[in-house]
């Protein structure tokens, strides 16, 4: 049989050979690479290509087989298959192919032996090339991985030490470009879904094309690739010749920004290992950003806490000042006046006994007034009434006095009796005191309403008036003006017992203050 006849024979039976190869390979114990050949579309194609190239190698086209083996070796090495596995599968295929040919040719004539040994030699050379390339590539991959690992390590260290969001963004823009050997890189930094800044390396402006790809990536929250023709892909394998890649940077529940990398190099693509590195870099960036925002939040919290503490101290001082003023305005002045009157009386003993009696009557009235004032002052300091007669009775008594002093009529809707912990009783009593005092001082209203309900473990208190009202704010801290302090103090009190206070008002529509406190 001539070389030509052998070739013809092989071509005619190419499909049968592939099928035979497939069946015999399938009977062998399985390995990863065998799986690839037998179970994937790509693997089956590779099987056909290999048989085809081996057949065509006889005569002139051996180089094509060798180059293909080289390519296969490179790809498989990068993909991470084991050398043993690949080598073993190819050797099995050699022996199966030999077997098939031996059987097909029944007894090899002498001249067929030449062709046959040429084919075997081609296969072995191909295998040798495959092995060399595989090991060489594996070394490169390892050294690249080492380099990436080291870069990633350095990057992570620098990132973790940094707490400035802008600096973190600057670093990822610079490092990703250098490590992936790209020409330019950009980042759009977001905060609360608004653009906070745009970064570029080297410095420059972002053109519309990159921006629109970044926007698509932002909406899809996915990495996107644009090839040289301007087609957009989600998968890098489909864009062999890549021009722009855009990747979102996101943490657990926050979105930080979009990174864009651009190359001007023709036919450039990113390897899996490079994409892997990019994702690692972005993960680290997201963590660094998360840290940074957490740090900022923590600082703000601390500031708020300091402010609250200061406010609390101010409120305490304010209460004390108010108390001192009350004592000065009422008791001290009354006592002073009485002192003068007593001196007058003393002088009158001899001068005018009739006038003395009149003055003493007058003095008794003043003493009675002062006694009442001191009692009020005391009960406002520590409403003992609360413990003695209970909240509802104490409130009724307070409201009776309040209405008499201010001429403001209060409609009350109170439960007959509520059993409450002491601190909640005091809190509610104080809030009613302060709220009604506000009605008197600011509301310009002749009526007000007090309502307390106790249902399902929740105490609700509402004080409302039909007065002039004010610009609505949900919480006293957002308020300006004279009665802010008192409202803040109320809020503090209510929050201290685990409750909630809100104010609802509009100019001309009165004011409604609500408190709710859960009872354990």
């Amino acid at each position, binding site marked *: 049989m001539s070389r030509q006849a052998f070739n013809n024979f092989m071509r005619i039976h190419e499909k049968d050979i592939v099928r035979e190869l497939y069946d015999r390979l399938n009977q062998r114990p399985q390995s990863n690479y065998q799986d690839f050949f037998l179970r994937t579309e790509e693997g089956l194609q590779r099987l056909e290509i290999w048989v085809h190239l081996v057949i065509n190698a006889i005569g002139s086209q051996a180089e094509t087989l060798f180059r293909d083996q080289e390519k296969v070796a490179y790809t498989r090495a990068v993909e991470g298959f084991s050398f043993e596995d690949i080598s073993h599968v190819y050797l099995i295929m050699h022996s199966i192919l030999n077997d098939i040919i031996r059987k097909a040719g029944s007894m090899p004539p002498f001249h067929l032996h030449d062709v046959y040994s040429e084919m075997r030699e081609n296969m072995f050379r191909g295998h040798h090339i495959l092995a060399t390339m595989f090991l060489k590539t594996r070394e490169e991959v390892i050294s690249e991985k080492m380099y990436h690992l080291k870069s990633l390590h350095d990057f992570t260290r620098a990132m973790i030490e940094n707490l400035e969001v802008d600096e973190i963004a600057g670093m990822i823009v610079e490092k990703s470009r250098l490590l992936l050997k790209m020409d330019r890189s950009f980042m759009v930094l977001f905060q609360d879904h608004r653009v906070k800044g745009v970064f570029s390396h080297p410095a420059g402006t972002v053109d519309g094309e990159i921006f629109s790809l970044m926007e698509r990536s932002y909406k899809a929250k996915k990495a996107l690739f644009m090839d040289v023709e301007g087609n957009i892909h989600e998968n890098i394998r489909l864009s062999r010749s890549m021009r722009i890649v855009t990747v979102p940077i996101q943490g657990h529940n926050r979105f930080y920004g979009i990174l864009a990398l651009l190359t001007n190099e023709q036919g450039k693509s990113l390897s899996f290992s490079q994409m892997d590195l990019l994702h690692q870099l972005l993960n680290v960036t997201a963590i660094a950003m998360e840290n940074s925002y957490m740090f900022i939040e923590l600082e703000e919290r601390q500031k708020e806490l300091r402010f609250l503490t200061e406010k609390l101290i101010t409120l305490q001082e304010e209460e004390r000042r108010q108390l001192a003023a009350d004592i*000065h*305005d009422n008791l*001290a*002045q*009354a006592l*002073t*006046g*009485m*002192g*003068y*009157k007593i*001196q*007058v009386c003393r*002088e*009158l003993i001899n*001068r005018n006994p009739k006038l003395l009696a009149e*003055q003493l009557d007058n003095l008794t009235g*003043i003493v009675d007034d002062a006694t009442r004032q001191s009692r009020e002052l005391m009960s406002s300091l520590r409403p003992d009434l609360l413990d003695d007669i209970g909240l509802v009775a104490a409130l009724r008594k307070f409201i009776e006095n309040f209405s008499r002093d201010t001429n403001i009529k209060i409609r009350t809707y109170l439960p007959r009796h509520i059993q409450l912990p002491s601190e909640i009783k005091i809190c509610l009593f104080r809030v009613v005191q302060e709220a009604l005092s506000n009605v008197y001082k600011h509301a310009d209203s002749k009526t007000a309403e007090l309502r307390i309900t106790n249902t399902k473990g929740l105490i609700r208190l509402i004080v409302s008036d039909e007065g002039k009202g004010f610009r609505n704010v949900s919480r006293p801290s957002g308020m300006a*003006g*004279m009665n802010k302090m008192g409202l803040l103090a109320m809020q503090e009190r209510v929050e201290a017992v685990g409750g909630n206070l809100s104010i609802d008002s509009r100019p001309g529509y009165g004011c409604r203050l609500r408190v709710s406190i859960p009872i354990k």
Partner: protein
Amino acid sequence: MKKTKVMIVDDHVIVQEGLKQLLELDGDIEVIEIASSGFECMQALAKKTNPDIILMDIKMKDISGIETTKLISKKYPNIRVIMLTIYTDDQYVTDAIGAGAKGFVTKDVKRDELIKIIHHVMRDGSFLDPKVTGCIVDQVKKGTKAGRAVNTSYFTYRELEVVKGLVAGHKDDEIAKLLHLSKHTIRSHIKNIFRKLGVSSRSQAITKVINLKVVNLE
């Protein structure tokens, strides 16, 4: 003998009454006017009420007795002001003296003493309650520089009205409406107030007048 004409400035009715009765027990003192605030006092003086002596409380609604005293010393130098207060703080004493008060007496004063003090001040004397002289001696020893600087600038009656408006949180036009003045005039008053206080903003001015106790917060 001519009766000594006394005016009482105090915002407590019981004190006003008691004091008036106490002073008038003696035939040679006549209480010719009672005012409940610094503003009322200045209004009465403007209506030709002409007391020889004013007994002035320090802490009252609106402007303080010390600020009112400054104004009186400037406008009516012949009227002698005696501070009558329950406070004995050093700062009040030095401020009162700085404001031009001729006497500083605590409110627990006895009738005989008070009458003696009034007569003493009438004879161009001055009187400091023994309870507060200690702090003055201390201040003299330390030298005035060591003590807190005494605020010697005084406000005019109008300016005090404007200050009151500022502290109440009113806007320029609101103050103008209250005082029946033009907004322009109010602005120029505010400028003068800032200059006297050495401040450059409303909030600074309010803080300072409160700290200096020119006005009292309710």
